[in-house]
C-alpha cells in the first residue's frame, strides 16, 4: 500500500502523533550518541556492553519510522481520547504542585513541601476548601513520613516539622523506657 493512495479518503496528517514519532527518533539518536560514548575494551570485542544498546537503537529507529508512517496516515489516537478536551488549567495547577514539591522539599523538608503540593493538586482537581485540604495534607504527610521513615527505615528529607516531632517522639520513648 502506498501512502498516496488516491482511492482512499485523503489521510490527514496527525500532528501530535507525528511529534511522538519524531521524538522517539530523537531518543534513538540519543541512544546512538550514548552508545558511541561507551568505552569498549578489546577483551570484550565479541559481545561487549554495546551490542544490546545497538540492537535497542536499531529497534527504536524502525519503530519510530513505523510510528511516523502511521501518523502520516492519520494517526492512531483513540476517538474517545481525541474527543475529550484537555483541561489545561487543571493539569497546569497539578504540574505547579509537583514543581513546588521538587523545589521546596530540600529547604522545607518533606512534610511542608507535601502539604503545599497536596493543597495545589486538590485545587487543580477542583476542590475549593483549601484550609481543610491543608489539614488533610498535613495528617497524610505525617502519616506517610512516620510510616516510611520510622517503620520502614527509609530516610526521607527531614525539615523543621519532622525534627521537632522526632525530638518529641524520641524523648517520649526515653521516658517510657524509664
Amino acid at each position, binding site marked *: 500500500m502506498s501512502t498516496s493512495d488516491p482511492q482512499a479518503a485523503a489521510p490527514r496528517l496527525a500532528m*501530535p*502523533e507525528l511529534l*511522538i514519532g519524531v521524538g522517539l527518533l530523537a*531518543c534513538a539518536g540519543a*541512544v546512538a550518541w550514548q*552508545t558511541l560514548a*561507551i*568505552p*569498549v575494551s578489546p577483551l*570484550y570485542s*565479541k*559481545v561487549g*556492553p554495546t551490542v544490546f*544498546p545497538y540492537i*535497542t537503537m536499531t529497534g*527504536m529507529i524502525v*519503530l*519510530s519510522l*513505523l*510510528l511516523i508512517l502511521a501518523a502520516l496516515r492519520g494517526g*492512531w*489516537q483513540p476517538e474517545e481520547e481525541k474527543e*475529550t478536551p*484537555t*483541561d489545561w488549567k*487543571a*493539569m497546569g*495547577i*497539578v*504540574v505547579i*504542585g*509537583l*514543581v513546588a*514539591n*521538587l523545589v521546596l*522539599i*530540600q529547604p522545607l523538608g*518533606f512534610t511542608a513541601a*507535601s502539604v503545599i*503540593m*497536596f*493543597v495545589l*493538586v*486538590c485545587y*487543580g*482537581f*477542583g*476542590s475549593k476548601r483549601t484550609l481543610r*485540604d491543608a489539614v*488533610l495534607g498535613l495528617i497524610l*504527610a505525617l502519616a*506517610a513520613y512516620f*510510616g*516510611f521513615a520510622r517503620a*520502614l*527505615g*527509609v*530516610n*526521607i*528529607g527531614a525539615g523543621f516539622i519532622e525534627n521537632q516531632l522526632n525530638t518529641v517522639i524520641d524523648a517520649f520513648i526515653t521516658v517510657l523506657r524509664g
Partner: protein
Amino acid sequence: METLGHLAHGFSVAFTPVNLLWCLLGTTLGTAIGVLPGLGPALTIALLLPITYQVAPEASFILFAGIYYGAMYGGSTTSILLNTPGESATIVTALEGNRMARSGRGGAALATSAIGSFVAGTIGTMGVAFLAPVVVKFALAFGPAEYFSLMVLAFITVSAVLGSSSVRGLTSLFAGFVIGMIGVDLQTGQPRFTFGTNELLDGVDVIIAAVGLFAVGETLYMASRRYAGKDEIVPLKGSLYMTAAEWGRSWKPWLRGAAIGFPIGAMPAGGAEIPTFLSYAIEKKLSKHKEEFGTVGAIEGVAGPEAANNASAAGVLVPMLTLGLPTSATAAIMLSAFQSYGINPGPLLLTTQGDLVWGLIASLFIANVILVILNLPLIGLWVRLLKIPAPQLYAGILVFATVGTYGISQSPIDLVILYLLGAAGFLMRRFDFPTAPVIIGMILGPLAETQFRRAMTISNGDWSVFYTHKLSLTLLTLAFIGLAGPHIWAFIEHRRRRGPEHVPGDA
C-alpha cells in the same frame, strides 16, 4: 506425592502468627488499592519495596502476594459498582456486573465474583503447586541460549501479541530496555546511558519507573480530563446471598473460567485480557439467558471472567517462580524484590528457597480464604472507600509517590526523573501505548542481555547457538509467528476478500 509434602511444609511456614498477620495486612491493603481507582498492585508493591531491607523474604513475599491477590478481588467491586475498571483485567467484569448492579442485583454480582475468585484462585494456586515442579524439571535443561530465546518469546507476546498495536507495544518495551540499561554495566563496569552524570550510575530504580508511570502519569491523566463524564456509584442493592438459581448459573462458569485462565496465565505470555474476554464469549454462547447479556446483566458474564481473571493471576506465578520470567508489571516488580534479596528466581529456586516458595504458595491459599471473608461480609467498608473524592485521592497518591521515590536517595534528581516518566506515562495514556511492557522491559531486558552475552561467550562469539539448539530455535520461531503471524493472516484475509473485486479494475 512429593508436592503435598512440600505444601504441608509450606503451611507450617505460612501458619506462624507473624506470617498470618503479613497475609492479613497484604490482603486488606490489596483489596483497598484494588477498590481505589488510580492505584494498582504494581504501584503498591513498588512503593513497598523498601520493606525488603527490613524483613525476611518470606514475610515480604507473603505481603506482596496478598496485595497481588487482593487487588484482583477489590478491582471487581469497583467494576461492578462504579463501571470504571481499575485494571484491564476487570474490563469484562464491568460489562455485565455494572448492568446487574443497575438492575438491583449488585449483591449477587459481588457474591458471584468474590466466590468465583475464591474457587478459581484456589484452583489456580493448586495449579501453581503442582505445575511448578514439572516446569522446573523441564527448565533444568535450559542453557543461556534457551533462556534468551524464551525471553524474546515473552517480550513479543507481552508487547506485540496482547494489546491493540504491536508497534506501540514494542515501542513501550524498547523504552523499557533503554531505562533498564542506564547505569553501570555489571559485566564490564562501563557506565551506559548516563550522559556523564554520577546520579545515573546506579541506574533508574524500578520504584521510580513504576511510580512515575502509574501514579504521576495517572494523576496527570485524570487532571487533564476532569470534566469528561463523572462516574456514579451504583448503590449496593440485592442480597449478598445468592439464590439457588444463581448458584446453579454460577458454578459452571467458575470452573470453565478457571480452566481457561490458569493455562493462559501460566504460558510465557501472561496477561488477563485474553482469558477474561475468552471466558465472556464462551459464557455468552453457552448461557440459557442470552437475553440478559447487555441488558439487565447476566450472572454468567460476571462469574466466568472473574474466575478466569483470578486463575490467570495465579498462573502468572508459574513462569515467575520457575523461570524467573515475569509476564505482568506486578510480576516484574516482584522479581525485582527477589533481586533485592539477592535471590535469583529460576529452576533452582524451589530447591534452594523451598521455605520461601512453598510458604508463599501456602499463604496464597490462606489469602484466598481471608479475601472471600473481607470481600463479602465486609463489603460495606470497601464501598465507603469508593466515596473518597478524586481531588484528595490523587493528591494523596502523589504524597505517597514522593515518599516512595525521595526516600530512595534523598536526591531531587530522582524527583525530576519521576516527573519526566510521569509526563511520559500521561502521553502514553492519551495515545494508547501500553505501560506494562516498559516495566517488563526494564526488569527483564538486562536479564535477557546477561543470558545473551553468556550464550555468546560459551559459543565463542558464534551467533548460530540461537538457531542450532532445537529448543532455542523452536522458541524463536514461536516468537516470530507471534510477531508476524497476525499481520500475514490479515494480509491473506485482505487479499482473499478484496482480491476478486480488484480484478476488473486491474484488467
